[in-house]
């Protein structure tokens, strides 16, 4: 009995933090319609800033806390002013979501650079001795968390429900166009809501920091928990996210207390899936206000990459010859290994391109398929001595099964909800790879994985692996190209931009989405297996959620919807840190910055931009020669 009370109290404390993050998420979502993935990163940023002020600078605690909250708020405002708010003016919702994924990565990278990768534990606000309340031991920090949460929640409730500012924010949320016509400065309101959200996140992070260990990449965990809380609670009412957070916290603690901590993640994911299927508007939402989204009008202009004609074919052949020639030019073994990894990751990016670039289904869980493929084949090959080829096939089969289940569950979800469901899937796989220690070797990884082999042919050297992967890529690209340039690819593209119109043409939208998911899973899994065989080692962080973001960065940097563009992105992101070793620390920061900058300034990617420039150049040339051409046609 006592244990149950203890667990529930622990759950409420954790739930308070989830509620705060959910509150921040729903505040931004209500005003802009965007789930801000960077929300959790502000928690960590605030907490670590507080640590520095308090421990390193030795400031008195209240001052340190105040300064950390203020610092995080200003940081949030700067981020919003330079990226989020301007992006809203012209980016579609899916790109905005990816922009916030970039911000999450960017802030994590910044945290890594500033604070390093070690975990931090900050001192509690009022000593370690728990309070004894009727025989139940309550850590005083828990009371602090509950108190701070209550104050923040009440203050937000007052501002949102009782003030003119709250009404204006509600107007922006319901109908931004109307709000703008009424003279409400929507960008400023957005900025304000972003700042408030960052502030709330910092408060939550600082309050909970003494109870957990924080490191640079804990942010995505918080974002995910907050998101699940928002979905479970619903965004339409103020109380929804708060109730959702508390509910999630208590449920998770109960699951962790009575079953295992591994099970807690499963419970959270289960809760998410049940809610999405059963009550998509949220368990605690009475009704859902309809959003008139002006930004649905925004048309995304992106370069059209046309594979027809001889030009692209010749360019492709030239590219393959150039790539095949590389091993004869390069003698550096380390560089050769990096090139192999580039190609292996490119396979995963190719799958992501079909799913995201063509079918427009944003997935933040591509690395999870790498993990499934990698671990399945590695375990089979290492522990059971299954030949690599068969082990890889088994990984693909398992990934395919997971993809089908995932796509069935997420079939009705669009945009942010789909993206976050895939993120939740990714995080679940992450926790399995870490938690199933007996199978996966846990955090320290799986060692002694054999080299890849096709029958008796063992691909032991990087060069052999390089040629094999290159050949594989040529085959994959040709197969995908065949699909993408015909009715299948057109159907995917139609679904990407307008599911309604696609259905009106008789396109079976669910079946095509599922096919795209399957292709992404197969290629992700294949890539994960090759990765494990190539490295002879596999650890959870090699195929964890940050890898998903990295794959997206590669895809977007190169240009999505171009198949081949991802190669540029994969090469840049993989090779640059290898070539300039000191840059390794800045890798996460750079990936985040790339995502943000590309989405902000170069939404069509490098290859897309290049194609656009070429077509503009060709157009200019045509213009120059057009008068003569027209004159020729005259009778």
């Amino acid at each position, binding site marked *: 009995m006592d244990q149950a009370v203890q667990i529930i109290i622990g759950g409420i404390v954790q739930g308070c933090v989830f509620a705060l993050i959910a509150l921040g998420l729903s505040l931004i979502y209500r005003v802009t319609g965007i789930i801000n993935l960077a929300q959790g990163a502000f928690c960590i940023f605030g907490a670590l800033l507080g640590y520095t002020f308090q421990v390193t600078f030795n400031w008195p605690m209240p001052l340190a806390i105040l300064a950390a909250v203020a610092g995080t708020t200003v940081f949030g405002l700067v981020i919003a002013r330079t990226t989020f708010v301007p992006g809203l003016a012209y980016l579609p919702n899916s790109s905005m979501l990816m922009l916030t994924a970039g911000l999450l990565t960017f802030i994590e990278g910044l945290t890594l650079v500033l604070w390093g990768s070690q975990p931090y534990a900050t001192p509690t606000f009022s000593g370690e001795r728990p309070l004894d309340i009727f025989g139940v031991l309550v850590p005083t920090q828990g009371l602090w968390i509950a108190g701070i949460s209550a104050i923040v929640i009440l203050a937000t409730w007052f501002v949102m429900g009782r003030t003119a500012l709250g009404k204006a924010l509600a107007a922006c949320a319901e109908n931004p166009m*109307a*709000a703008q016509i009424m003279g409400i*400065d929507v960008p400023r309101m957005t900025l304000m809501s972003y700042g408030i959200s960052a502030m709330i996140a910092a408060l939550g992070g600082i309050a909970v920091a003494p109870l957990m260990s924080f490191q640079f990449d804990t942010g995505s965990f918080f974002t995910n928990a907050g998101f699940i809380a928002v979905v479970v609670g619903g965004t339409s009412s103020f109380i929804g996210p708060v109730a959702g957070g508390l509910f999630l916290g208590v449920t998770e603690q109960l699951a962790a207390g009575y079953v295992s901590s591994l099970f807690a993640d499963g419970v959270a994911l289960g809760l998410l899936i049940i809610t999405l299927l059963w009550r998509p508007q949220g368990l605690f939402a009475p009704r859902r206000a309809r959003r008139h989204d002006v930004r649905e009008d925004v048309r995304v202009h992106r370069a059209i990459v046309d594979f027809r004609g001889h030009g692209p074919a010749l360019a492709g052949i030239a590219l393959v010859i150039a790539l095949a020639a590389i091993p004869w030019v390069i003698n550096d073994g380390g560089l050769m290994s990096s090139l192999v990894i580039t190609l292996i990751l490119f396979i995963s990016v190719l799958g992501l391109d079909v799913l995201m670039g063509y079918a427009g289904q944003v997935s933040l869980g591509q690395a999870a398929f790498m993990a499934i493929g990698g671990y399945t084949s590695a375990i089979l090959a290492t522990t059971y001595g299954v030949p690599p080829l068969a082990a890889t096939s088994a990984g693909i089969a398992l990934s395919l099964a997971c993809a089908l289940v995932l796509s069935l569950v997420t079939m009705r979800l669009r945009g942010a909800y789909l993206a976050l469901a895939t993120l939740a899937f990714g995080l679940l796989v992450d926790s399995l790879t870490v938690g199933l220690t007996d199978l996966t070797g846990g955090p320290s990884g799986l060692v002694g994985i054999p080299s890849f082999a096709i029958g008796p042919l063992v691909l032991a050297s990087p060069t052999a692996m390089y040629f094999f992967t290159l050949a594989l890529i040529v085959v994959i690209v040709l197969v995908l190209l065949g699909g993408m340039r015909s009715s299948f690819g057109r159907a995917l593209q139609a679904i990407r931009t307008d599911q309604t119109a696609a259905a009106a043409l008789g396109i079976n939208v669910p079946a095509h989405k599922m096919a795209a998911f399957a292709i992404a899973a197969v290629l992700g899994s294949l890539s994960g297996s090759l990765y494990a065989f190539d490295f002879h080692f596999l650890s959870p962080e090699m195929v964890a959620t940050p890898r998903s973001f990295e794959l997206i960065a590669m895809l977007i940097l190169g240009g999505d919807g171009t198949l081949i563009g991802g190669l540029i992105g994969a090469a840049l992101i993989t090779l640059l840190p290898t070539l300039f070793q000191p840059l390794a620390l800045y890798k996460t920061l750079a990936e985040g910055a790339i995502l943000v900058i590309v989405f902000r300034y170069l939404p069509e990617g490098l290859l897309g931009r290049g194609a656009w420039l070429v077509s503009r150049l060709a157009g200019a040339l045509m213009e120059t020669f057009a008068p003569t051409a027209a004159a020729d046609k005259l009778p």
Partner: protein
Amino acid sequence: MLEIQSLCAGYGAAEVLHGVSLRVAAGEIVALIGANGAGKTTLAKTLAGVLSPSRGRILFEGREINRVSAHERIARGIAQVPEGRQIIGGLTVEDNLRLAVFTQRRRLGSAAIHSRIAEIGRHFPVLEERMTAMAGNLSGGQQQMLAIARALMVEPRLVVLDEPSLGLSPVLVSQIFQLIAGFRQRGLAVLLSEQNARMSLAIADRAYVIEMGRVVLEGTGQELLNDPAIAERYLGVGAGSASGDDEGARLRRKDLVRGLAPILGRGSDSVRS
């Protein structure tokens, strides 16, 4: 009062207005008539400051306002009654009215805002009765009244109305038009975009006809009302055949029919001659 000089505007790469020029004098009702997609709503949005023009100038009381923000335009006296009413359904009628002066709330003070709402109540008895009701629960006609009342809250000098008769029954439409005609007595200038050409021309001092993003005709309301071309195109009077019945057209049609047949998978037997 308002002068628009060769205004070009649109959404991203798609330009909708190709050089529109018009003016509205103080206390004048000017109607803007044209079909769906002619550019009336784009013009209204550009005037509101929601879209920025790619070329041309908008002058209000002699000063260029091209780069003036939406809320500053309202403060200067341009109020909007947008297409589709665009009221905030999740807030009460009174909150909707209050939000209209949100950006000026400190300057005006709560007493002034209160008296303006009371004044609106006197002019719109329908709204007076339902001040605390959710705006989303009002009927279509009441919502339109609210949208107009909301524009009047800022005590504008120019009201831009975009399709105020949209989706209203004939009785309500004439009520709305009488209300707009009454603005003249208050000395308000009105720019009225309407598909209902007959009603808007009847109350307008002057009118512009806009087609494909260009002004193709202007005149007084009466002149346009009596113009046979307008009568046919917009008033549905004496609509004749749009395509000529000459030999060329007939041949072209035959080509079309034959050209389409294989694409539509029709044998020659199923095609009507």
